[in-house]
């Protein structure tokens, strides 16, 4: 599997660290109820198919990526900079 880093191009997954679902970008408010924080930190949709994830280009440019990927086929559909995704959402 290779990821298409927007800064560096297609690179081997050995350069990246997987963090988990891109739900991590939607951080709850600090005073949100414990159930909301529990859901944010621990619970996962865990789809069998298309998913959005955060990957860290640790041994490359150091960017955080939002990767759209198929968990059933390992097909990489889209890779964006997490900062761009966050900016677009705001």
């Amino acid at each position, binding site marked *: *599997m290779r990821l298409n880093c927007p800064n560096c191009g297609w690179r*081997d*997954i*050995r350069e990246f*660290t*997987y*963090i*988990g*679902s891109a739900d991590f970008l939607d951080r709850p408010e600090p005073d949100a109820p*414990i*159930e909301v924080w*529990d*859901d944010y*930190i*621990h*619970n*996962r*949709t*865990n*789809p*069998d*198919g298309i*998913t959005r*994830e955060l990957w860290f280009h640790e041994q490359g440019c150091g960017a955080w990526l939002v990767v759209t990927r198929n*968990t*059933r*086929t*390992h097909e990489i559909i889209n890779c964006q900079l997490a900062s761009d995704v966050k900016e677009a959402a705001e």
Partner: protein
Amino acid sequence: MLEKGYLGGGNVGRNTTIVRANYFLPGNSEFYSHSLKLWEGLEQDLNYNVMLSQRGQISLFHSDGQRDAAIRRGNSIINQGDDAELLSVPELKKMVPYLDYDQARFPIYGAILQRRAGTARHDAVAWGFARGASDRGVDLIQNCEVTGIDIEDGKVTGVQTTRGAIRAKKVAIIVAGRTSKVAAMAGMRLPIESHILQAFVTEGLKPCIDHVISFGMGHFYISQSDKGGLVFGGDLDFYASYAARGNLPTVEHVMEAGMTLMPAIGKARVLRSWGGIMDMTPDGSPIIDKTHIDGLFIDCGWCYGGFKAVPGSGNCMAQLVATGQPHEAARKFRLDRFRTGRGLMDEEGTGMQHNLH
């Protein structure tokens, strides 16, 4: 018992078949101890030869720090009532002379040996349980996929399947890597992420590896099956996957670790490899609990350690479903431990995140 495919066709039919009770933390420790005792009586209970072979597991350590941790773990295992022995290098050399002891990078300092650990024939375990359950009156329905879980007023009333509806007052979800998909039918979102774990087997060889051996540097463990194949595996690929196959970096890592530990196996040819779908929890420990839906139970989160848990998981889950009370040995496998933070069982001490176990 509803099975989407055929009996023994899931993870139980494709694993590295290791049985052990060498866990450290309260919760896990008593459960795996309970499970190992059930393994020891399993052939009598089922009247089926599951080929349990208590050949001993050797867990190597390679530094002073690892030795301290191993001794601490060994003491904890003994306190639980199970067996653990500290092996010095001369003792180890007598048992397993073929390891690469004196290399500069990962010298071997000793090992913890659990003599009651070993392997079992995984297919026989599935068949033995199936026959035992059938004899005791359980209906085993194969090629029957659950497509929905019926819930009325917070109570479970039955399931929808590809072969029709079945009414039931109690439903238990015990589906390993596909837990999230089935639980979603009941509207639940669980602390589970499915990951890939690869394993490998070589062509059949004459007996050469008499124990289960695990490497303490990098992740590698190996045993020899009764057919002669070397069965070995390593770490997860470390990303979510339902593909049932992994990627080459992990293959390379496993092969490198194997060659570092025992160069003698380098000439063996790998016959096949496969990837299993693991239901990973944030702390790397399992869940056996009720859910917020009346009559719906869940047994999941076995991560990469489900095989040795088979008899214990079945026994504890059966008690929970039958009586509504958790079995003493599985009392700490609570679903709400992540929310409350009480009783977390992070054996590796790496943190409470899916990508860390």
